[in-house]
C-alpha cells in the first residue's frame, strides 16, 4: 500500500491531453486506487519536440516551466515513456553546466516516473483487479525500454488481469517508426517500419494491441486501420484501470446526443 498522503502531479502529456483524455482518466484511477492523491496543474508540453529538433532554447524554457510547475509534488507521474524520458534523462542534460538549474533538474528527474513502473516499482502494486476479455499483445516503446527501464512491469500486471491472454509480440523491442517528427519528416521510411510492425501485430492473432505511449499507439493504429486490420488499439492504462469499454484508438464513438 502507498504511504498515506503521497501527492502526485500528473504530467498528462500533450498527446493524451489533446487526442485521448481517456488515458489520463485511467492513469488517475490507477494512482488513486493505489492510495495517491492526484493533481493536474495547468500544463502544456515537456518540450521534447523542440529538444529533438535542435531548438535547445525553447526546450530549456519549457523544461523550466515544467520543473517550476511540478516541483511541489512528491512524485511526477507520466503515462508515457517518451515524455518521462525527456524529463528523467534529458532535463539534466539540457541544464548541464548550469549551476542554478542543473541541481533542480536532477532533483526533479529522480522523482519523475513512467506510470506503470511507478505503480509496480514505487508503490509495490503487484496485482490489478481488472477484467478484460480478449487476447492482447504488447509493444515496448523505445523510450520506455531504453530510457525508463520499463519492460517486465506492464507484462506482470497484464498477466493478472482476469480474462486476458497475453500473446508475446515478436520484435516487440523494435521501433514502430513514429519517432515524433520523424514520421512526418521521413514518411516513406516511417511507413516501411510501421508496416513491419503492423504485420507483426496482426500475425500474433491478438484482438488488442497495448503499449505505454500514445504516439506509438496512434502510429500503429493508423497503419492497422489503413490496411484494413481489425485490432483494437489502447493504452495499457485503460485496460489496467478497467476502463477499456470506450472506443479504441481510431474507432468512432457509439451514436448518442452531442455532449
Amino acid at each position, binding site marked *: 500500500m502507498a504511504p498515506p498522503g503521497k501527492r502526485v502531479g500528473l504530467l498528462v502529456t500533450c498527446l493524451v491531453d489533446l487526442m485521448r483524455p481517456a488515458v489520463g482518466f485511467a492513469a488517475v484511477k490507477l494512482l488513486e486506487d493505489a492510495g495517491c492523491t492526484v493533481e493536474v496543474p495547468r500544463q502544456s508540453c515537456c518540450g521534447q519536440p523542440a529538444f529533438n529538433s535542435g531548438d535547445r532554447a525553447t526546450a530549456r524554457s519549457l523544461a523550466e516551466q515544467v520543473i517550476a510547475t511540478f516541483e511541489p509534488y512528491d512524485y511526477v507521474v507520466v503515462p508515457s515513456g517518451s515524455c518521462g524520458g525527456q524529463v528523467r534523462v534529458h532535463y539534466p542534460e539540457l541544464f548541464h553546466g548550469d549551476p542554478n538549474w542543473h541541481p533542480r533538474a536532477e532533483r526533479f528527474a529522480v522523482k519523475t516516473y513512467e506510470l506503470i513502473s511507478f505503480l509496480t516499482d514505487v508503490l509495490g502494486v503487484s496485482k490489478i483487479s481488472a477484467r478484460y476479455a480478449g487476447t492482447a499483445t504488447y509493444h515496448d516503446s523505445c523510450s520506455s525500454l531504453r530510457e525508463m527501464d520499463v519492460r517486465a512491469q506492464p507484462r506482470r500486471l497484464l498477466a493478472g488481469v482476469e480474462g486476458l491472454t497475453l500473446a508475446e509480440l515478436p520484435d516487440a523491442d523494435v521501433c514502430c517508426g513514429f519517432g515524433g517528427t520523424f514520421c512526418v519528416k521521413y514518411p516513406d521510411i516511417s511507413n516501411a517500419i510501421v508496416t513491419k510492425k503492423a504485420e507483426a501485430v496482426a500475425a500474433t492473432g491478438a484482438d488488442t494491441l497495448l503499449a505505454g505511449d500514445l504516439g506509438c499507439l496512434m502510429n500503429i493504429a493508423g*497503419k492497422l486501420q489503413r490496411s484494413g486490420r481489425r485490432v483494437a488499439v489502447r493504452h495499457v492504462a485503460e485496460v489496467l484501470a478497467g476502463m477499456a469499454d470506450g472506443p479504441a484508438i481510431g474507432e468512432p464513438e457509439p451514436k448518442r446526443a452531442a455532449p
Partner: protein
Amino acid sequence: MTLTSPQFKDNARAALADAQLQRALSKGLGFVERRRLAAERLPEFEALRDAARDIKNHTLAHLDLYLEAYEARVTAAGGKLHYAVTAEEARAIILDICRKASARTVTKGKTMIAEEIGLNDFLEQNGIQPVETDLGEYLIQIRHEMPSHIIAPAIHLNKDQVEADFRRVHTHLPKDRNLDEPATLLAEARGVLRERFLAADVGITGANFLVAETGTSIIVTNEGNGDLTQTLPKVHIVLATIEKLVPTLEDVSTLLRVLARSATGQDMSVYTTLSTGPRRPDDPDGPSEYHVVILDNGRSSMLGGEFADILRCIRCGACMNYCPVFNAIGGHAYGWVYPGPMGAVLTPALIGVDKGGHLPNASMFCGRCEEVCPVRIPLPRMMRSWRAREFERHLSPATVRGGLKFWAFFAKRPALYGVATALASRVLWLFGRSSGRFRRLPFATGWTRHRDFSAPQGATFQAQWRRRK
C-alpha cells in the same frame, strides 16, 4: 565516387521501391541474432565494453603522445611513416610510393579510408589499376558502386546480380560455365583474384588498429585477402586515420574481444594480422617496403569537442545492423562512405552538416544503436547535437522552424495553450466523430499518406479535469 547525401530523401524513396534491394535486406542481417548469442556466451562482455570505451577515451586524451611513441617504433622497425592532413595529401603520397615502385596494379584490402579519400578513382586516373580483393568490395568495384555496409559491402546484391557481373567482366572464362551457386561464384572470384594477388606490385590495406607499443598495424578479416594483399607484393602501404591508435597489445586484446562479437557474432574473425615493418633479412617472404600513411582529414579538430565520442568507433557495424532505418533503406541511401547511425554522426563532421544534414535527421532516436555499440558511443545524443547545429545556423527547412515557432508560442503560455488545444480538439472531433479517424488531413499529409489519423475525443483532458474538480 559522387556524394549524394543531400539527396537522401530521394535515395531513400528509391531504395524503398527497389524490390531487389528489399529482398536482400529482408533476407536479414543474421548478425543481430548472432551478436546476441555471442554476447550471452561471454559473461565478461558488458565489462569488456566499458573497458573498450575507456581504452579509446584514454588514447584520444593522450593521442599526441601515443602517436609520437608509435612513430618511433614504426621507424625503428624499418617502416616509413607519412603524415597527411588532407585527402589530397594522402592520395599524392600513395601515388608517389606507387610510382617509385613502378606499380601497374595495386591490390587492396578493405579500407573505408580509401573510399573516404577517393583513392581508387585517383589511381585509375593516374594509370594505375587498383583491384579490390575483399570479395564484397570486389563485387561492388566491378559495378562501380559504393559499399552499402561497412563490413558487408555487397549486402544489397543477390546472386543473380553477381552472376551477371561475373559473366560481363570475366570474359576470359568459358561462356557456358555454370554459375548457379554462391560456391561456384566464390570459386571463380578466388581464381580471378588469386592471379591479381600474385601479379600486384603494391598492396594497400587499412588498419583496424595501430599499436603504439610496438609500431604495429592490425587488420581483421575473414577471407585472408588482406594478408595476401600485404604479403605478396614488394611494397605494403597501410592507410589509417589518427584515431586508430591503441596503446598496447593488452589493449588490443580487449578491443578484439568486443569487435568480432559485435560485428558478426564470431568470437574472433578468422584472420587477425599484426604487421610491423618490412620483411626481415632472413624472411623468405613479405614486402621489402612498409609504409604507413597517417591521415587526419578533420579528426584532430573533433578531439575534445561535442563529437569526440565518434572517434571511439571501431567500425564493427553493429549500430547499422540494429538500426530500423538502415534495415529499411540499406547503406547507399546515406550517399557517402559511412552509412547507418555511425555514418549519421561522422558524415556531417567530415563533409559538413549543410551537405550531410539529412543523416542525423532521419532517426527516431530509438536508441538501439547506442545499446549495442561496443565502445558505448552516445549516437542519438550526437545526432541531436547536429540538429541543434542546424537549428542555430538556420539550416533546418523554413516550414520546420516556422511550425516549431508557432507551437512554441502556445506551449510557453499554458493558459493560451489550453484554449488553442480545446479548439483544435473540438474541430477535429466534429469532423472526425463519425468514423473516428481521418483518411486525409490537410496539414498532416505526411501522416495520412500511409496511415489513418485517429480523431480526438472532443474536449481536452485538462478542460474535462477542471470541469470535474
